[in-house]
């Protein structure tokens, strides 16, 4: 080493147009995240420490929250519902996923399809369906004269289980598919019994998948608003408590206080899930051999019956919704009619068109922002990369109700220039895309990480500006992921309720919110009809996506398939 001291900072690079542009883009992205993620969340925190007049009161709101049994019970209720649903869902989903991946039962394609149905509907649809069947005026209740008392804990858990099932099945199918056949060959070569193989090979292999499914379901349920709102009755959970405080009693500070408390379990589950997923990847090696299930009549038959029951339950929910939307007055008058599709009490199809417009805008803008944001964080390394990454993954831990309330505080503050957004469709688009930002951002980051880090350096050496390479190389290479991201944004935006319920205004009604309002008003048939429309639109877009994907695959086939 030379005796002369080396300066500990590298020399500055001279300013040039591209560097300025890059910095400007980073600054724009940082401003977006600050304005629509960080600042609104800080508003919730500060409001929870103030009284109704905006005076600082310390932890007084929290003290009142925990000391008022009627409100405090929402914490234990939320935890009870989320825990119960998680256990039930993950067990049901595990057997279902096991049947899909590890058996040779007939019709696996159909079972895969049916289990995904709830993804296309707002969560409250399962609640409405349960009421149609088991409610005070439900089909079964009337036939049998026996009322199971569906309103409350029982109903919430049952409906949430169906709502969360596809998410858990997706994760567990992925985990079970990733198994290495060589381990099973080794186990059978060693003469291990089927039970022993299951305990020593199958379970450890999917351990992280199961944990991940638990956390995802827990988060979904504890932050869900739709199901407890329609079927919870007097059973109050935190998400509905925020709604009651804000909409029912106009008590914004208590709404903020409950929000902050709700953030804790939701955020905790997300963080632990992230840590667990990081481990899961280490289990997969490139040399793994995929497992081909062997035929086994008894097991296959048992699993087939099981899947038929579960899928039948889901199918029944959606058939009930469809049927009730097409008959005059469920369950009294079964004369067919389409009058419920006129939506005369909520002003016709405005909400549907608004929903499509907002979802489409969220899909386009969200995809651009998530992909470009991931590019700026991943490929344009600066001191800001770390903080921007954190802000980009933060939204996943924010429950929708909390985000909605945060946006009220931010965009409906007296005298603030940000108020221009309030009551517009734009704020709904923003809340959709921020609410569902993290998964697309992480997907884009993963896609970018797979690309050679020297692409940008090669272009710079050739004198090609970075934005040209972004457009000519980076985007085409990530096209399959980009298309998938936009679908994710669209489908979620179509069905989300929680943030939107605080932000809709006259003229910007959304379909999912309309379902809730019509159900609240007793127009359950119209609510069902609206649900059917939402699902139909989701299907149509999913189909469009499949066609688009086929086109993308054909285009990219030339360079992804080696023909050496």
């Amino acid at each position, binding site marked *: *080493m030379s005796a002369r001291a*080396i300066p500990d900072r590298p020399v500055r690079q001279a300013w040039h147009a591209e560097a300025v542009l890059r910095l400007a883009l980073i600054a724009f992205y940082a401003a977006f995240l600050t304005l629509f993620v960080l600042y609104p969340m800080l508003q919730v925190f500060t409001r929870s420490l103030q009284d109704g007049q905006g005076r600082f009161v310390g932890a007084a709101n929290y003290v009142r929250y925990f000391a008022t049994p009627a409100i405090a019970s929402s914490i234990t209720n939320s935890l009870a519902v989320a825990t119960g649903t998680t256990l039930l869902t993950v067990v049901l989903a595990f057997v279902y996923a096991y049947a899909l991946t590890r058996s040779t039962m007939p019709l696996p394609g159909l079972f895969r399809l049916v289990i995904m149905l709830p993804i296309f509907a707002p969560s409250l649809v399962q609640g409405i369906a349960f009421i149609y069947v088991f409610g005070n005026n439900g089909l079964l209740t009337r036939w049998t004269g026996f009322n199971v008392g569906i309103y409350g804990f029982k109903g919430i858990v049952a409906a949430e289980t169906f709502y969360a099932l596809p998410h858990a099945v997706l994760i567990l199918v992925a985990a079970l598919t990733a198994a290495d056949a060589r381990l099973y060959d080794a186990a059978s070569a060693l003469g291990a019994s089927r039970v022993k193989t299951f305990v020593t090979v199958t379970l450890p292999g999917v351990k992280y998948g199961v944990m991940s499914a638990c956390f995802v379901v827990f988060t979904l349920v504890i932050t869900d608003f739709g199901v407890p709102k329609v079927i919870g009755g007097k059973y109050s959970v935190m998400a509905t408590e925020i709604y009651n405080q804000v909409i029912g009693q106009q008590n914004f500070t208590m709404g903020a206080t409950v929000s902050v408390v709700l953030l804790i379990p939701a955020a905790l589950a997300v963080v632990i899930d992230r840590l667990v997923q990081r481990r899961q990847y280490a289990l997969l090696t490139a040399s793994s051999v995929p497992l081909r299930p062997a035929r086994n009549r008894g097991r296959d038959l048992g699993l087939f019956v099981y899947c038929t029951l579960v899928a039948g339950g889901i199918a029944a929910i959606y058939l009930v919704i469809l049927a009730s939307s097409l008959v005059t007055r469920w369950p009294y008058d079964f004369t067919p009619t389409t009058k419920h599709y006129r939506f005369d009490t909520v002003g016709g199809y405005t909400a549907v068109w608004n929903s499509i417009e907002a979802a489409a805008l969220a899909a386009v803008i969200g995809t651009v922002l998530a992909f470009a944001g991931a590019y700026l964080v991943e490929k344009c390394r600066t001191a800001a990369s770390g903080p921007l990454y954190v802000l980009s993954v933060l939204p996943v831990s924010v429950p929708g109700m909390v985000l909605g309330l945060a946006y009220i505080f931010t965009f409906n503050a007296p005298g603030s220039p940000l108020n221009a957004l309030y009551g517009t469709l734009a704020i709904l688009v923003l809340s959709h895309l921020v609410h569902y930002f993290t998964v697309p951002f992480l997907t884009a980051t993963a896609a970018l990480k797979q690309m050679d880090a020297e*692409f940008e350096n090669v272009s710079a*050496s*050739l004198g090609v500006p970075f934005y040209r390479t972004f457009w000519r190389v980076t985007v*085409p*290479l990530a096209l399959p992921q980009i298309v998938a991201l936009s679908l994710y944004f669209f489908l979620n935006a179509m069905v989300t309720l929680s943030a939107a319920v605080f932000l809709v205004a006259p003229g910007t009604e959304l379909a999912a919110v309309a379902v809730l309002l019509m159900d609240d008003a007793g127009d359950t048939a119209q609510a069902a009809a609206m649900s059917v429309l939402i699902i139909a639109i989701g299907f149509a877009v999913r189909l469009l996506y499949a066609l688009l994907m086929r086109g993308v695959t054909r285009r990219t086939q030339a360079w992804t398939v080696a023909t050496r």
Partner: protein
Amino acid sequence: MPPAVELVSIAKTFGSVVALADASLTVADGEFVCVLGPSGCGKTTLLRIVAGLERQNAGAVRLRGRDVSRLPPSQRDYGIVFQSYALFPNLTAARNIAYGLETRGWDRARIAARVDELLELVHLPHHRHRYPAQLSGGEQQRVALARALAPSPSLLLLDEPLSALDARVRLALRHEIKSVQRRVSIPTIMVTHDQEEALAMADRIVVMNHGVIEQIGTPHEVYMEPRTLFVARFVGQMNVVPARADARAGWARVGGVALHCREGVTLPEGAALTLAIRPEEVVLGGAGHAAENTLVARVVGLQFLGAFTRLALTLPGDVPVRLDCDVAAGALAVVGAKEGDELALALPASALRVFPAA
């Protein structure tokens, strides 16, 4: 005319790691310079500082006399080939090569002609419509080279361009790269950890260790006159024998034997030093051969290596000293050495290099 590249006292740290300390180097026009050193010694860092992909903490980079120390990569005018080639997978070979030309406002015909010329240069005229995934590793490498050369840069940078290829392709590509470089007559800096590659390709070699340039010289100089023990051991095969300085200047003692050494370091009597001699410089001689530096050694192993055989020998003494000796196939037949035999050998004073003790 100023040199193609001039590095002046470049220093670079990553946190507490000193990747480069005071590295200076000039590259003349048309010269092929290899930066050689073990993994982690700072070769890539040096190359990336020339390229502007890494910013130095101190020192200056001049290209043809122009100070580019603070300029971004796009304003430095060089072509670069990375270890991974970094070909754009969604573009054909021809589009990859044309990539740097399309932003220069050239018309189509001119770009097409230039692409043809380069495909010709790297001997791939029939691969223009293939995607990178449809090319072999060696072909990808040549496309990457053509892409780097397409805009006629005034400097070519290569970072371990051959390390991802299998041995046979690697040998063929050494010649290919070298001949392309000669034909285009472009000053080139290539980074490698493979000393054979450096010896075969370079006009001059820069040997690096731990962020420090140990020696700069022609392959012959670096091989025959290593300036430090590190260079002696890293480039080619080298026997290293611990010894002590003798009372006579220019002599050293190994065990009880006094050896006459090459001119060089003079140390006080008894001081520890290291003698170095290449296996092919050890001379086998019949017993009783009366020459300087004659020893008797025992054969402890034979390794047949084709054109020659490497004998593993031990010198007698309190601490047995290992010595390798390369013997051509014909010469071995004459000597007829087997394991366990004792052999007389000579260590010519002109080959016995002296370094401070390791």
